[in-house]
Each structure stands twice: as C-alpha cells, then as structure tokens.
C-alpha cells in the first residue's frame, strides 16, 4: 500500500512520459503542441499533489475551528503555471497556422526550410 | 426599459449567488451595493441581447406559468421519457426516424423552449430547426406506425400539449 498511496505522483510522471513520447515521435505540429499541453498538465498535477495533506480541507477559512489545510503555495504556483501554459499554447498554435499558410503543411519534417 | 429589465435580472442572479451573506434580509449591505453596480454594468452590456424585440416575457403571469410548467407537465414527461428510454436500453427494440413537425410558434424564445423541452421528453430529439418558419425536425426513437401516413405531421402526438403551454408562456 505504501507505494500505491503515491499514485497521483506516479500518474503525473507517467503522463510526462506519454507527453515525451508525443514530443519525440509525432511529427504533426498540432499533435506536438498537444504534447506540450500534456507535459504542462502533468507538471501541474505533480505540483498540486505535492501540496495535498491527508484529511486536509481547502486552504480557505470557512469552518470556525480551521482544521488541517492543504498547502496553499503549490496551488498558487499552479495557477500561475496554467495561465502561462495557455499563453504558450495560443502562440504556438498561431505559429502553426502561419506555417500552414506559408507551406501548406503542418508536418514538422515537410514544412521545414532550414537545416544543416 | 431593456436596460432596466436586464439589470434587474442580473441583480436577481447576483443575489441568488450571494444568499445568506449578511443581515439585511439574508444579504449584507456591501453585497447589495456591489450587486447593483454589477447589474448596471451587465445591463449596459447585454441589453440588446438578453431581451428580444418585445417585452412579453415581462408579464409575471407568464413567469408563474413557466414555473408551473417546469414543475408539472414537464417533470412528469421527463420522468416518463426516462423510464421509456431505460426500457429501450434494456430491451434494445428501437424504431427510429427523423420527422418534420410544424409547431405554429413564431418567436425564437418559444421555439427554443419547445425544442429543449422535446429534447428532454419522450423519445424525441430536435435535430434541425428551420430558420424561416418554426418547423422542427425531430429524431424520434420509437415511431408509431399509424403516425406515418399523414404528411403534415401531427404535432400533438409528438410533443403532447407542450406547444399550448409554451404559447401561453412565451408565445
């Protein structure tokens, strides 16, 4: 049970592995961007899971004797990270659209012009 | 007029969200002030969207009828529909088809209400709506055989007495 309790961590790192698989093997630009989104999500999940405390409530003072709370700082960091992620996704997708207009293709191999 | 009505509805929605925050009849004074400010902003922004071309929805009688309709015939039809669908899920006997029905309703709101109602009620699902007149194309999961003969489809057997209710509410 000991290692099974770490399951959210495990899930997060397995997600990172899947994202890396996409990033290495998938040549479609939009798929590639999805890989980055997955990587982002996995790191976020890892961060929030780090801050979980057994039996803790949300870090908001709602109950009069404030009980155990989960850690607030990872949540704040993840909020920042989520918005950063969507900014990166938007910019990359715009670049993919632009590439398609110039080359008629969004394959990273077929649309490339620079090498060597 | 539109502005006032939209603001008022926004204010009501805000009050619903912030219930039990204070002492002034369940709300605190700051919440009410902020609610008014927000309601004014919302009203200024969406007055042409929220209220259509006419004001017939402002009649409180229609609101009362809407609530009665939702709690009475609609809920009953919903329950019946679900039991029917559950039966179909278990038995697997279906007899589907897409039908065109004329509802005779004119304005957008009533067509929307009817379409959403029949989506949720016995065996029917609105697939397409005609942009010119209020004709609905309905996917029916279990068509009765005798229904197919008449070409101007009978609205009554598909949607029961919903059009009457809706005509009284929004028509």
């Amino acid at each position, binding site marked *: 049970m000991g290692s099974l309790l770490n399951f959210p961590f495990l899930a997060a790192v397995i997600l990172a592995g899947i994202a890396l698989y996409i990033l290495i093997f998938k040549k479609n630009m939009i798929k590639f961007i999805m890989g980055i989104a997955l990587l982002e999500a996995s790191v976020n999940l890892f961060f929030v899971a780090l801050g979980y405390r057994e039996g803790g409530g949300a870090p908001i003072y709602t109950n009069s004797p404030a009980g155990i709370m989960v850690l607030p700082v990872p949540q704040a960091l993840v909020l920042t990270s989520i918005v950063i992620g969507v900014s990166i996704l938007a910019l990359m997708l715009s670049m993919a659209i632009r590439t398609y207009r110039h080359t008629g293709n969004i394959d990273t191999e077929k649309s490339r012009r620079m090498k060597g | 007029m539109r502005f006032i009505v939209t603001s008022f509805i926004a204010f009501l929605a805000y009050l619903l969200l912030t219930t039990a925050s204070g002492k002034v009849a369940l709300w605190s004074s700051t919440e009410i002030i902020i609610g008014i400010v927000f309601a004014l902003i919302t009203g200024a922004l969406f007055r042409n969207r929220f209220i259509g071309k006419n004001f017939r929805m402002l009649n409180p009688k229609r609101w009362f009828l809407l609530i009665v309709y939702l709690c009475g015939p609609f809920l009953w039809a919903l329950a019946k529909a679900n039991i029917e669908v*559950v039966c179909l899920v278990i038995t697997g006997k279906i007899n589907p088809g897409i039908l065109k029905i004329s509802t005779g309703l004119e304005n957008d709101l009533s067509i929307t209400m009817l*379409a959403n109602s029949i*989506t949720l009620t016995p065996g029917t699902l609105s697939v397409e709506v005609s942009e010119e007149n209020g004709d609905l194309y309905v996917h029916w999961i279990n068509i009765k055989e005798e229904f197919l003969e008449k070409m101007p489809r009978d609205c009554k057997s598909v949607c029961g007495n919903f059009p009457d209710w809706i005509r009284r509410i929004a028509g």
Partner: protein
Amino acid sequence: MAIDIITYVFIAGGCFFNLMAVIGLHRFPDFYTRLHAGTKCTTFGSILLIIAVLIQSISIWVVEGGSSPQSILSLHAFIALIAILVTNPTGAHAIARAGHRSGVKPVKAIVDDLEKEDNA
C-alpha cells in the same frame, strides 16, 4: 432517519439513471439514439441526485438553524442544476445538427424527412 432513507433512495435512483445512460451509449446502434440516452438519462439522474442533496441539506438546515452554510450549499447546487437543464438539451441539439450536417445517417430509420428535404 426517514430523511436519510429518502435521500438514499434518490441517490440510488440518480446513480441508476446515470448507469443506464452510459449503458445506453453502448447498446444503441447509432449516434442519434445514443444521444437520447446520453442526454435524457443523465439529466434526469442529475435532477434526482440534486433533489437528494437538497433534502439532505435542508434537513441539516432545519436541525442546525438558519445560520448554517448548508443553505448556500443547496442554493448553489440548485444553480448547477439549472445550468445543466439549460445547457444539456441545447448541446444535444447542436451535436445532432452537426452530426446530421456532417453526413451521419440514422441507422435503421424508417423515415427521414430532413434527408428528403435536403435532396429536394
């Protein structure tokens, strides 16, 4: 105690309808019929579950007195229900229309007026 039993009945009903919805997704042959299952049953299941929530929180409210936060809880659950009631059928309509326009035909359909209309 009786209130608890009523709550349990409603929860069981809600879970049953949700289960039927997802089973219906597999039993039915084409996507229009699946949409029937996926929309109607989940909506009704949600109504039952939220009624359970309302009963429970109102009972707590009555027991503990008016200042309990449970009242807000039931109100917010009710708002969620309204949101589901408005968005679910509209979404179903949008999906059905999109599916028909993208060329998915109803399986085993005995009549298709819209198809005739398009061809005419």
